[in-house]
Each structure stands twice: as C-alpha cells, then as structure tokens.
C-alpha cells in the first residue's frame, strides 16, 4: 500500500508520427526536431514555476502522444530538471515511458536506461497486422516482438504491454491469439482495454458511416472474461478493471490516480490534481509553448471539488482497484466514515450484490466489476445520508467561478 503522502508527475509528449484511428488524446503530427526542442524547454519552464507537493515523489510518467519519438537527450533534460528541484527520495520513483514499437532503437533504449527510466509501457494493441493497419498503427507485429526483446536486452525489468479488444471485425480467436502472443513475450504488466469509440475520431466516423462494424457487446464481454481467466492462470493478477501485473509490478503511477493522490502535470492539455482542485493546461501545443515562453500560466480550466464530490470520486475510482477502498483511509482523509455519508446507497448496492464489505475494505463483487458503471453512477449522484460541511475556506466562492476548460 502506498503511503498517503506519495505524489506523481505526469509529463505529456503530444507528438506522433501518425494518428491512430481510435485516439482522442491531445496529439499532433508533423512537428519536427525544432518543435521537440522548443516544447521540451517549455516543459522545463512550466516545471520551474510549479509548486512541488509535500511528501515523496512516487512516479514520473511520460505519456502521449508518443514520448518515445523524442530524442532521448530531451527526456534526459526533463528528468534532470525534475531531480534538481527534489530532495533525494527514500525509494527510487517509478519512471515510466510510453513506447510505440515503431519508434524504438537499441540506442534510445540504452539512453532511457541511463537517464533513469525504469519502466516501459509498450503499445502493442493487437497481434494481427491487418488490425494494426486498420488502426493506423505505425508498426507491425514483428516490431512489437523486436521492441520487447531489445528492451529486455537493454536491461528493462518492468515492461507493460497495451492491447485493445472489441476492435471492428475482431473475432474471439484473434483476441485469444493477441493475448497469448503478448504472454509469449513475458510481460510484467498488461493493460487490456475495451475499445471506446470516442466522438470526433476517424474510427467514430467510420462506424457512423457503416464502414466499420463493432462486435456484439456480448462477444466483447466474452473477450474480457476469457482474458481474465487466461492471465490469472499465468500469474498476472488483475489489480484494476483493465490492468494485470505480476506480483509487485502493479503500476505505481496509475494507482495514484485511483487513490486521489496529488499529481503535477506538465505539458499541453495535461491534467493536475491536488486535494480540492483539478486543473488542466491549454491543449494547443503551440499555444502552450507561447504561453510558457511569455511567462504566463498555461492553465486552460479548473474544477473545484467539494468534500462531498471528492468523497464520491474516492469511492468510485478506488473501487476500480481489486483491493477496493480502504475504509480506514477514507476516514483518515475525510474525518468521517463512508457509511455515515453514503450508507444508504452502499447498502442498496450491496443488496444488489454489486458491492461487498470485507473487513476494512469495500470491494466490487465479480458482478460489480462487470457493471462498475452501475456502481459509479449510483455513487456519482446518490443523495448523501448527511450533508458534509466543507471546511476549506472560500470554497463556495471558488465554485461560483466558471471554469471554461475544453478538457
């Protein structure tokens, strides 16, 4: 279990060689070395004006976009700048790099090692070339295998592989091949995501026009269930709805999110959180660079969370974890017990066999894990059994300000 004072840093690298059909993240294509350098400087500039949270840094995460597209020297600059402002942590933080197999060389891998990157998250997505092509991935299956081999050779001992199920036209057999193909590469961690067709993506348009047909939801459910059984048998334990890890290899970074730990955000469109407030930067890469260079906060919007809202998030996010919500920690954070505030809805969910309370933990049942949204929706707006006074001063006024973020 993570100590409460742990916090993390998210660094967004928006550059991509090509845009995947399903992707709705903040990414840009067509920018070259000069922009990469300028952007990296902006990241450093933003970091200099950040307030460093108290406690110890548990994780740094380079996400994207495609962080692996950058010259590793730039990653080195960022990490150096981070360490400069921080006192020596007790344990070395997890430093994760998102990697696209189409952008990797042995040299890059060696450099990342040298600069202190200790975890790779490799976007494999599928183990059939026709699916990779359909998703507009810039790599093929052989490059996935090669990347993992090279990473091991370079000394990486903590490797995650991402894959997506429920792809247009995907059969159960193909999914099984993907999962087995990934297992064959001996990952320490797997993230298996059901495809989400996000508005505004090329995939969304294709589905709307009938050019791509999504599999039946029952088949998608079967894919998820099959993978869980398979991975569990292979000693990869599901520790979150979509995440599996060998013992001791659960992602520290993602757990910060699900436990409402503070995180610093650097980069265009990146989201930051401190108790009571979440905020995010402007999405436009050039705009972000212009603002930082002009010495202006690149803030785009924010939302203030009341204690009530934060308690709800604590519950529905925490329930994504297999170990569930630690009710003692809930009490430590909010000075009131979850059952005092939400007893009514919690009991209702228990009666529907979606939730169970087990000692000090509140967990989803297996059925509750399938229907986590049913639970989350109930928690997002359940009437509280009692109203909780907000002890943070000035919160009411802040709430009234509009926050016009594009998110």
């Amino acid at each position, binding site marked *: 279990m993570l100590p409460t004072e742990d916090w993390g840093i*998210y660094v967004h690298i928006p550059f991509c060689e090509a845009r995947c059909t399903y992707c709705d*993240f903040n990414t840009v294509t067509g920018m070259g070395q000069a922009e990469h350098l300028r952007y990296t400087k902006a990241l450093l500039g933003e970091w200099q004006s950040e307030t460093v949270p108290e406690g110890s840094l548990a994780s740094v995460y380079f996400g994207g976009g495609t962080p692996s597209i950058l010259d590793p020297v730039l990653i080195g600059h960022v990490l150096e700048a981070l360490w400069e402002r921080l006192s020596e942590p007790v344990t070395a933080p997890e430093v994760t790099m998102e990697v696209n197999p189409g952008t990797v060389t042995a040299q890059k891998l060696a450099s990342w090692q040298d600069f202190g990157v200790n975890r790779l998250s490799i976007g494999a997505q599928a183990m059939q070339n026709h699916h990779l092509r359909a998703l507009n991935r810039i790599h093929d299956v052989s490059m996935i295998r090669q990347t993992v081999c090279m990473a091991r050779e370079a000394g990486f001992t903590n490797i995650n592989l991402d894959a997506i199920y429920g792809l247009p036209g995907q059969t159960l057999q193909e999914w099984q091949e993907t999962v087995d193909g990934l297992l064959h590469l001996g990952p320490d961690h797997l993230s298996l*995501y*059901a*495809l*989400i067709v996000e508005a505004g993506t090329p995939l969304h348009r294709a589905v709307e026009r009938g050019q791509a047909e999504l599999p039946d*939801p*029952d088949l*998608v*459910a079967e894919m*998820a269930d099959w993978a869980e059984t398979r991975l569990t048998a292979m000693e990869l334990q599901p520790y979150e*709805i*979509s995440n599996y890890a060998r013992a001791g290899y659960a992602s520290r970074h*993602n757990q*910060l*999110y*699900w436990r409402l730990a503070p*995180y610093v*955000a650097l980069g265009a*469109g*990146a*989201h930051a*959180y401190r108790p009571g407030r*979440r905020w*995010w930067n402007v999405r436009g890469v050039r705009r972000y660079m212009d603002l930082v260079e002009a010495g202006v906060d690149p803030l785009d919007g924010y*939302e203030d969370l009341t204690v009530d809202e934060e308690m709800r*998030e604590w519950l*529905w*996010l925490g329930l*994504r974890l297999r170990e569930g919500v630690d009710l003692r920690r809930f009490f430590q954070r909010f000075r009131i017990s979850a059952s005092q505030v939400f007893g009514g809805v919690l009991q209702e969910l228990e009666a*529907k066999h979606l939730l169970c309370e087990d000692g000090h933990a509140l967990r989803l049942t297996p059925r509750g*894990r*399938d*229907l*986590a*949204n*049913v639970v*989350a*929706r109930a928690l*997002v*707006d359940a009437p509280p059994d009692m109203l909780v006074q907000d002890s943070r001063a000035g919160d009411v006024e802040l709430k009234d300000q509009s926050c016009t973020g594009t*998110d």
Partner: protein
Amino acid sequence: MDQAHIRNFSIIAHIDHGKSTLADRLIETTGALTSREMAPQVLDSMDLERERGITIKAQAVRLFYQYQGEQYELNLIDTPGHVDFTYEVSRALQACEGALLVVDAAQGVEAQTLANLYMALENDLAIIPIINKIDLPSANPEAVMEQLLDIGIDGTEAVLTSAKQGAGIDRVLADVVEKVPPPQGDAHGPLRALIFDSRFDSYKGVLVYIRVVDGCLKVGDQVRFMATNKLFEVSEIGIFGPNPVPVQELATGEVGFFAAQIKTVQDTRVGDTVTHAQHPADVPLPGYRPAQPMVYSGLYPVDSEDYHRLREALEKLQLNDAALTFEPETSAALGFGFRAGFLGLLHMEVIQERLEREYDLTLITTAPNVVYEVTLTGGGHLRVDNPARMPPAGDIALIEEPVVDADIICPSEYIGAVMELASERRGTYLNLDYLDTLRARLSYRLPLGEIMYDFFDQLKSRTRGYASLDYRLSGVQPADLVRMDILLNGEVVDALSSVVHRDRAYDKGRALAERLRQLIPRQLFEVPIQAAIGSRVIARETVKALRKDVLAKCYGGDITRKRKLLEKQKEGKRRMKSVGTIEIPQEAFMAILRTEHE
C-alpha cells in the same frame, strides 16, 4: 365606424401557400406597423407556433385603408392552419363576410384549399382568389386559374401576388373593399357577439375575441355568455392594430377583444354568443358546439413527486386552452398521472412540449388513442378513452370507433399508391374524381385511430410529397377490435396496452414486441417481453441481461470527463420510468404507434 365602411375577412390557404407572409404584407402596407417593427409573421405570437411554422391561435388585426377618398376599417381575422383546429377555423370564418383564398402559383389547389373553401362557402363568404408566389421560377398562374375554375371559382378574377416581394398587395386591399360585403347586423337590436377565440393574460384575465354581430358593446356593460351562462362586467375593450389599443366600444360589425376579470378560458367557449345581461338576445348565434377531445393520452411524471406540479401546470394551460381536458388516472405501471384529452395529435404534442419546456417537467406520455364506444353484452354503454380500460372481449357486444372522411388530392399516377395506403389503414373507398387531366381527388372513410399518427407522413412519402390531405370527423362505425396487452417479466404493463383490429393483432403484436426489445435497454437481469390478447400470448421477445457496463480506461486526464459522462448517463436514466424493477424509456411507450408500417 359605420357598418358600410367595415370589412371583415380571413385568409384561407393550404399550408405553406403563403398565408402568414400575405398577412404581414397587408399589415405593413396599411401602415399598422412599420417594416422595422415587423417580426416575420407577426400574427403567430407563441414561440412554439413560430418554431413549428404553424398558426395555433387565431388573432384579429384592425387595418385602416384609404380607398377612393374614403377610410375603411378592415378587420383581418387569422385562422389556425391545422386540421386539429377545424372547428376554431369555422368559427373564425363565421366572424367574417369574406375570405382571401390563397393558392400557391406553383403548387396549385390542394386538399386544404378545398376544405377551407367549402367551409368559407358554408358561411356564405365572398371569396377573393389570390394566386401567390408568382415570383417562383416554377409558378404557373394560368394552370392555377384553370384549377380554380374547376372548383367553381372564377380564376380570371384572381389577384396575382408575390407576398414575399410585396407585389399585388394594393389590388388585394382594393378587392377586399369592393368585393367583401359590409356587415349587415342590427345596430339597434340586443347585443349578439360571436366569440371566435380567447386567450389568457396574466394581468387582465381572459381576453375574449369577438365579432359584434348585432348591437354594441361598451366598457362597463354586464354581459352574459349564452352557452356557459356566465355573467361578467366588461372592464376593458380593445382592438389589435396589431398592438393592443384600448377603445370605449365595439359597434355592430366590429371586431376586437374585451376583458372582464374572467379567470379561465373554460368560461369563454369558441362559438358562444355574448349578450347583455339586462337586455339579452332571444337566440344565440348558430353553430356553437362544445370542444370535444378526439385523442387521449396518459401523462405521468417520471418523478412521482412532480405529480402536483403537473396538475398545476395542466390547470394553468387549461386557463388558456378550452379544448384541453384532463382527469386524474392511476396506472399500475406508471403510478399517479392524468388522462388528458386533445383535439388532435398536434394539439397533444404542443401541450406536452409546453409542459416540459415551460414547466420544466419530465414526463412519460403514453401512446395516444381515440375514444371507443363500447356496448356491453349486458346492455350497458361505455366510452373507453384508455385501452387499458377496455373490458374483456367476452363482455363486449359491440365496439365502435371514430371515423373520418378524408379527401386526398394527388397526381393521378399515385392513385394506386394512395389506395394501397388507405386499404392498409382499413379505409373504405368512397369516391374518385379528377380535378383536371393530371390530378385526382380520392375520398375515403378511415378510422381516426389509423390516421392520427403517421398517415400523412406515409402519404407524403408514397407520393413523393405530391399528395395533400384534409379530413373531417364523420361519426363512429363498428369494428372488430381487441385489446392487446404487453407483459414485461410476466406482468401486464397497462400503459403499453393498445386496441388493435383482430385481423392484424398477430402482426402488430410481433412487431411491437420486437420494437420494444430494441427500445428497452438491457437491465441487470433478463426481461421477457410478451404480447397477449386475453390470456393468449401471441408474441415473445427477450431483452438480454446487461453483461458489462464498465469504463475501460480512467486515468488522471480522464477523471473529470469520465465523471461527466457518468453524470450524463445518469441523467439519461432519469428520463426513464421504473416499472417494477425495469427501466423503460419514453420511446417505448410510443412504440405502439410505430410498429406496423416499418
């Protein structure tokens, strides 16, 4: 003004032939409003009307017009443009001596042109034919003149106009003075004034729109409404110019409105006669009949705590809508609500929309149905306005359903398609004649229940938009009807019951069960859907249980967005009604209407 200088007239037209634009132009030309003050289509004063492009409430405008050195008072009485409001149209026409019959120069005579013309002729109105939209490239005024001749109007007399461009408007005004006869009332007789409309004003109470036929109405008069037998003291009299202007009196032949601290339009029935309390007229003006709802539907709040707010909203709407009826009703499935009666489907939709929009209510509306006249084997008689209350087949000696006589005008090549549609809707063929070499008029008797929903849409789509329709109620006729129930999870959901023809019950049951399967979202458990007649199940479908409902990804940058997504989904669920443990969306209750012809 003396009667010789008054002209009262309406504009009648098929929908979209340019009635409202012509009215705007007349108002503008006579200087009642400057063009700067003109909002397009000033006579349609409710937002909803303007949005839907239809006129629901009639209004009257007084125009002053100089003609050959003399000043005339022209009262333009607007009429509703939808078949739901046929009775209101007939009373508005009764308040006139003349009518402008507007025909689109490109479209020609349509079904509503004819229906309105016949209604005007029944009221002995002078007809001024107007061929409008002559600016259109496809305009063919000569052909329209010939069509007019075929329906007994001298087309060569027609005024050619482009209301959009303002062409021909002076000629229209001159024709109104020359061809519309002045009122012929008895200026010295006892007061008789025809109520042709009314509306509720929150400051003045009900404004009663009248045409003074005999006598004179003054501020301070004690008046009696002859049908409702209510007494009031006239506190204010006014005319619309088109903005309201107070006047001291309305003389014989004049048109205007009065206020008299009247609390509800229920007291001011369209077609009723206003007379003096002290010196009453002996007989009222002819033609009054109480508003009779033709279509009924259940209105239920999604949140049962909104029941009282719904009642208050309906009461408020009723203040301004004498045709709206409602009474409390309890549904086993939907809880407490109201059975509301409407003139027709448009009227129903307008009311529902106003309840949701102006009163912020979230409602479940059951599929509309007509009223069935049921004779019981025991000899009793029932008026069934809710399919769920239809007695068991064994108790019924005879069911009668309301029917309409419909006229459909279409190019002759579509006669076959129209006949096919009419027969699918259980129509009885009455007549076929030709308006000219290209266009035919088909007459059918059709059950109202078969045409109230999508008949017109179907007619349009099967005739590539060329057919026009008008219909009038023509009583009831016996039919072999049965009640079809829908069971969810083995329980009858009364709000989903419908009355169907026995020969089509099987097909309808299958189609409805299938449609419900598509519309009812997956629940936490499997939901069997059955259609049944009595105890006999005629169709069965199953909504499979929800297997997964989970957000695959939720990381730092997603949390706000994902929470909003969850909240939005929750909002969607709030619009559903929980029946037992099953959540049913509004569309499912309307599915009854939409099954058979898709």
